Every structure is written in C-alpha cells, then in structure tokens.
C-alpha cells in the first residue's frame, strides 16, 4: 500500500485483498471497504495514507466492546475455559493462573479434560509452575465429577479463583457439547453465581470456521470473552473482528507465545496495528 499516493480503485482493491488475507472474511472485508469509501467521500479524504488510517479505525471500532466483569465475585471466582481441539486452552490457563498468582490470589486448577492422553499431566505441570492447588482424576473419569471435586476443594480450602480446563471438542459433536452443559449445571448446583467467566479460546491461525465455533459454543453456554492465541505467528487473527462485531463479546486476552508470560490484555488499536504492521 503506497501511502503518499492519491486514492484509486487499485488502492481499495489492494486493501480488500489485505483484509481477506488476514482472515477477516470476504463479506466483512467488502463491508469494511464500502464503509471506508463512504467515510472518505464524506470527509473529503484524498491520500492513501489518510484512508489507511481511517480503515484501521473502522476495524478497531468493530473490536471495541466495553463490558465490566462482576464487581463482587463470590469465592471462588470461577473461570471456565472452552474451545475446539489444540487451540491453546491448557497453555492459556497456565498463563492466566500466573496473572492471578502475581496479584496474590490463591488459585486452584481443575483438570476436567479427562479424555485426552497426557491432559491432566500437562495441566499439573502448569499448576506446579504457578504455585496453584490442583485437582484431577484418572483418564476416562467423568469430567463433571472433576469440576465437582474442584468446587469442593476450592470452597473447603478458601481459594479465591478456580480455573477449569476442559477437553478440546469440535463444536459439531452433539454429545461433547452436551457434556459442557452438564459441567455448567454441576457448577451452578454448587454455586449459582458460577461460572463467572466463560472464555472461548480461538486459534489465531483459524479461518472462517471460528464463526461457526463461536455460534455453537455460545448456543450451549453464554460466552463472556474470547482469547485469541498464537498471534506470535504470521496469522493476523482477522476473524476476531468479525466475531466481536457479530456477537458483541469482547476479546479479553491474546496469546503471543508458549511461555508463561506470553499473554497480553487485548487492545483493539494495537491488534489492528499488528494486523497491518
């Protein structure tokens, strides 16, 4: 995109191509360029440089949702982490646990992925790294019973925060989605205020399927926030813009690496800058 030139049809085309390449999606890309054209006309913008800044502002605006979490969370503040397979749920929990631990909170991790090989061991390592309490069972155990054990332990030991790791599940598998419903019912039975936060973790390299994922998960449990991971790679995570706009749910955090400190608060302007940086 040549910034010092005057706006032309080629400029709009190359912008639309850039959005599609960033996984923003064909429809939203077209809509964004249409909105840009309108604003350019109304404000009398002539240079590519100015138009480019306008476009970034339009995108950042799509990503801006202001929502405040509860002010007085009951103990334990319960965070449920869900998403399809391999997106980074377990790793994200390790990073989030570190954040709470740095704030002096006592945290318990519940290994409710009782299906996948090595899942409980993986979370246990993150628990050790962050000084959390831990609850888990053998492979093949009932996921909801781990959640129940976690609640009992959290209440009994007076933990401030409980984070629940769940098995990756493809959203088109009805029985796996029903299991999530069961987990929420077990939580609510123990404490009707929970879960306080439900984070849907999305892989930053995912294309348009992220929309189907968000729809299906949101149908089963009310999602309160997205986490977009693996943004340290070359994928731009443009699909997050579509999701925020469509569902009115904010992106809470972004994952930028495999290390314990590789989690950042979400900032719409920075996100869009990184997309086109």
């Amino acid at each position, binding site marked *: 995109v040549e910034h010092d030139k005057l706006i032309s049809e080629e400029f709009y085309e190359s912008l639309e*191509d850039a959005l*599609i*390449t*960033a*996984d923003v*999606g*064909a*429809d939203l890309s077209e809509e964004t360029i249409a909105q840009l054209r309108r604003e350019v006309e109304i404000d009398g913008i002539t240079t590519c440089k100015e138009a480019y800044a306008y476009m970034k502002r339009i995108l950042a605006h799509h990503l801006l949702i202001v929502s405040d979490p509860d002010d007085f969370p009951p103990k334990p503040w319960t965070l449920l982490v869900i998403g*399809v*397979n*391999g*997106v*980074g749920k377990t790793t994200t929990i390790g990073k989030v646990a570190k954040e709470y631990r740095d704030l002096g909170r006592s945290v318990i991790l519940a290994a409710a992925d009782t*299906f*996948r*090989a*090595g899942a409980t*061991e*993986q979370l*246990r*390592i*993150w628990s050790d790294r962050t000084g959390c309490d831990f609850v888990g069972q053998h*492979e093949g155990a009932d996921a909801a019973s781990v959640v129940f054990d976690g609640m009992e332990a959290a209440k009994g030991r007076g933990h401030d925060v409980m984070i629940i790791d769940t098995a990756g599940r*493809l*959203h*088109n*598998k009805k029985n796996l989605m029903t299991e999530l419903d069961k987990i929420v019912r077990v939580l609510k039975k123990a404490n009707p205020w929970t879960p306080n936060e439900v984070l849907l973790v999305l*892989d930053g*390299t*995912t*294309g*348009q*399927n*992220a929309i*189907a994922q968000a729809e299906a998960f949101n149908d089963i449990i009310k999602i309160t926030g997205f986490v977009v991971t*693996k943004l*340290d*790679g*070359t*994928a*731009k995570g443009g*699909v997050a813009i579509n999701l925020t706009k469509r569902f009115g749910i904010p992106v809470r955090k972004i994952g930028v690496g*495999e290390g314990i400190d590789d989690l950042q608060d979400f900032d719409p302007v920075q996100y869009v800058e990184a997309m086109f940086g």
Partner: protein
Amino acid sequence: ELSTRLESVINKFRGQSKITEENISEAMREVKRALLEADVNFKVVKEFTKSVQEKALGEDVLSSVTPGQFFIKIVHDELVKLMGGAQRKVEFEINRTNVILMAGLQGSGKTTATSKLALHYRKKGHRPLMVACDVHRPAAIDQLESLGKSLDIPVFSERGKGAVEIAKNGLVYAKREGYSLVIFDTAGRLHIDEEMMAELRDVYSAVNPDEVFFVADAMTGQEAVNVAAEFTKQVNCTGVILSKLDGDARGGAALSINKVLGVPLCFVGVGEKPDALEPFYPDRYASRILG
C-alpha cells in the same frame, strides 16, 4: 443437497438457456465467495475462478441440464481435477527401517497423527516404533507414551535430552531392534521461529526421513500456504495430513497447499481416536469445499 451459496449460484442462471459473459460473472462471484469462506487461499481462488470461467464459456450446455446445474458441475469437476493430482498413497517396504518425520504448527494434531500412522501401518504388517522428540511442550512425552501404551505400540523416549540426540538414539535403537517403521513426533513450532526451525532441520539431517508429513489443521485460514511453504523449504515436506476434518471446517487450506506447493494430501484425520485416519478422496473433498 446444495448449500444456500450454491443455490444462489444456480439462481444466477434462472431463465437463461445458456452460459454467457453476463450471467457467468455474477455466478463466478458467488463461487469465489464460497471458496474464500472455505479458507482457500485467495490467490488460488483468483486463478481457479479465472480458469473455470474460461472453461464454462467454452463449453456447450448439455440439453439435459439447466445452465446453472451445468455450471456447478464444471466447477466441481475442475476442483476434483485440481485435487485429483493431490492424492498420494504412501507405502513402505517391510524389510527396511522406514522413517517418517512429523512437522507442523502448534496444536495441529502431530502427536495424535503419529499414533494413528503407527496403528495404520501395523495393520499393514509393519513393526512400528514412535519416537518422542518434543522436549518443549509440558507432558508431550507423557502424551505419546500414553498413546503408545493404549495401542501396545512401543515409544522410544529419553527425558532430559535434546530433540536431536533423542532422534539419533531413537534411530539407532530402531535399527538394532528391527523396527520397520519409525515415526518421529516433533514439537509444534512457528515457521518463523529460527531456533525451532533449526532444531527441525537438525532432526531431519539426523534421521534422514523417507517421508516428512506436514500436519495441517483443517480450520487453518489464509496463512496455510505461507506456513507450509516455509516448512517445505526447510525440511522438504513430502505429504500433508489434514487433521480435524470431522469438524465442519471446509478445509480449503489443503487445496491451497497442494496447488501452490505441489505437496500431495496423503491422509485426513477424522477424529481423536487412533483409528480415525482415512485416505484422501478428491471427489468428497471437492464437494466439501464447495459447501
């Protein structure tokens, strides 16, 4: 059973008796949308729609179908043709030590695919050994060992050593013990991570693989080609395994990887269990891409 997108393509030809320059550009736009929604790389989409448009205008509509149906058939057939060159059956001789190296981004399904391949080839008469070369992800070795245990397929692992050393020792062990197939599971890594790509190159040199399978997640978006290109440039990928195809992601990434890089599709993962591995069928895949 057509999707709404394809129905709208057919509708562009409603009331028309043949395919013309006018009605085709509208229809082509819908096809372009369908392919982009399926995460096909947008350069591949541009090239494909151009060649389909030329073909459709050059053919006479069969009298038994409407121009819309005829058009969809051309698009479908061109996709099958495009993917037809993509499939590749991978077989190994039983009386040698065959080596497979697994590679790909984080979380794409490599470790699971390792156990699936081991089971697949054991059923074909091989004696497989899995080698745990992921020394980065917490409990990665545990994961592979657990998979090996439930399948009764041995896993070579050495905690506390580096990936290259484990790979070398694993190969020596495999040859000594007479395994006919050794599959090296590696850590997920970014194609732009110089240190990790160097590790992969070193493992590659150490084990001299017969096949290097790039495992790609079916839901990968537009970056799929760039990622695969870098992996192929550094460790010559000989095949793609497309995982999580039991989801509803259309999987356009595989089409793009094959078209741009010429790397064929060898298997698709259709579930989390070890038997959830299938050969790749171009015709079924073409239908899936079109939605």
